[in-house]
């Protein structure tokens, strides 16, 4: 896996009232690769995503996208620059239909959103692309269903579809298969395999079999730091990783005292 890093992170740090959730993380995501972030709960994976997408400002460190410094840019700028994300906790527009979600995502880059004097019928130009994307994620039959009544797995699929609709350079997926049944997991893995062409994907994933199937590289985070980075095969047998996971196992399960 050689190539330019599309996303390059140096010394990235984020404090929450003295608690350091992300602690000097260095990360290079190669263009065109699928890069998995793994680590126990609370390792700082979602916080890292929030930093990369502008939802949180770093307390320290830099982020570069395609060689350009993008540290501290707001979420909408990051999205416009080609960084799209899905959320760990599904985040949709409850009262909009699946189709309207796609239209909203598709018109985002066009400047159409400012045309308050034009008819919304203009959005019909996205009809074909909308159908395509809905088919792609298996929502073809649910175009007119509002998001609030979609089943959980379909909500996740819709999240993926609107992120894809942005035609992002980097797609950040926070636990795309969390809570899914086996069948949906397989379909999502399949989908990631299909959409990765010409794209860079970073995903947080607890399901190691998924990581093994899709990821070119794996970064293991623990307590806000990078513990190990390598291929899935390397990471899987790394002693530090095993002991880190076993360490938490040995000290018990929930809420170990600080």
């Amino acid at each position, binding site marked *: 896996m050689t190539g330019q890093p599309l996303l390059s992170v140096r010394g990235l740090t984020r404090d929450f009232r003295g608690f350091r959730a992300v602690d000097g993380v260095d990360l290079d995501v190669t263009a065109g690769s699928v890069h998995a972030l793994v680590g126990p709960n609370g390792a700082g994976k979602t916080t890292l995503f929030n930093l990369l997408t502008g939802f949180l400002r770093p307390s320290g460190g830099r982020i570069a996208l395609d060689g350009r410094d993008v540290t501290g840019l707001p979420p909408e700028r990051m999205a416009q620059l080609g960084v799209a994300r899905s959320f*760990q906790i599904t985040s949709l527009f409850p009262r909009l239909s699946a189709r309207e979600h796609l239209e909203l995502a598709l018109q*985002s880059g066009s400047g159409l959103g400012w045309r308050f004097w034009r008819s919304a019928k203009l959005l019909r130009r996205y009809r074909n692309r909308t159908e395509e994307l809905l088919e792609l994620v298996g929502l073809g039959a*649910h175009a007119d*269903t509002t998001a609030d009544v979609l089943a959980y797995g379909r909500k996740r699929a819709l999240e993926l579809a609107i992120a894809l609709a942005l035609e992002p350079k980097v797609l950040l997926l926070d636990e795309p298969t969390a809570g899914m049944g086996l069948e949906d997991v397989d379909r999502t893995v399949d989908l990631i395999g299909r959409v990765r062409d010409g794209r860079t994907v970073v995903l947080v994933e607890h399901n190691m079999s998924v990581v093994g199937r899709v990821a070119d590289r794996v970064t293991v985070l623990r307590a806000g730091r990078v513990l190990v980075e390598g291929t899935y095969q390397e990471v899987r047998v790394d002693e530090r*990783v095993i002991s880190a996971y076993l360490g938490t196992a040995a000290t018990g399960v929930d809420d170990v005292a600080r």
Partner: protein
Amino acid sequence: MTERSRVVTPEVAAGAGASASASAERSAERPAERPARPPSVLGAVAGAPTWFRYALLAVGLGVALWLPNGLYPTVAVDIACWALFAVSVDLLLGFTGLLSFGHAAFWGTSAYVTGLVAIHAGAPFPVAVLGGALAAAALAAPIGYLAVRRTGIYFAMVTLAFAQMVYYVANEWRSVTRGENGLQGVPRELAGLDLTDEYYFYYAALPIVLAGLFAAWRIVNSPFGRVLVGIRDNPARARALGYPVHRYKLTVFVLSGFIAGLGGGLFAVGHRFVALDVLHWTTSGKAVIMVVLGGIGTLWGGLLGAAVLVRLEDWLSFSGFDTIGLVTGGIFVLVVLLFRRGIWGSVAALAQRLAAGRRRDS
């Protein structure tokens, strides 16, 4: 360091799959998917067939044309002005999720500017009203700029605070606003027509009212309106899709200020008089009450709210009631408690239920 780790080893993780938050969400999953009720974005009549919507439009226009024949023309003019005001508030409250409690600033500023332009420049009243509305929009820009950085109750408080400032300035600046005496003798000039009769003035003003209402409808049913609804329902998601939320809110705030200004300007010409109470906070409150009465997020509900409230107040004051506020307040409370969707929303919901019932039967 807290590691509330349930996922212990990669192997266990492979089996477990779900993180805590995700499984919590999963249990909240709805068992059955309702079939598609066509999109909610466009307000209550969106699901109705096309012929029905045209019929509704025809009825609406018919009522607008008939109004000063069925009511006192003065009351009809008031209803038309307040309808614009209410719709401008609903644009923010119903379609962007912003409760402005200071919209009197725009209504009142436009009323004063319209009055001054008409008095001092002798401009035709539509020009004066346009000038007033532009002044309102210009005022909405800085106020909106600061207010949209807040959400919920804080947004309402910021708008209220600014409106109070505008009220204070108008009260102090007597050389221009004439203080308690108000601006008197606002002319109704239009191409030499005699518009002293309220009946004719209503028809002269109607095109401006309809243009303002059309503008609001267009905004809601535009690509821009879609973004607004997205921002209303999930601002974080809208940002992640690349929409600068503050700038969208500011834009709709200014547009809303303009439409409120159209109403306020016409109100000044309609009464030939502008007094300080056009800037009073109770004026802002009245517009909000009209929207709630008519139905938040229905756009046309604002028309009904305005009609009901103006008519009712007129009737109460005519019958010598001196506790008008008590009655309208009581009705407001009843609507909030019993018909949360307002008049328009409740009727639309009922119609939808009837239509659904008929479909099942056939």
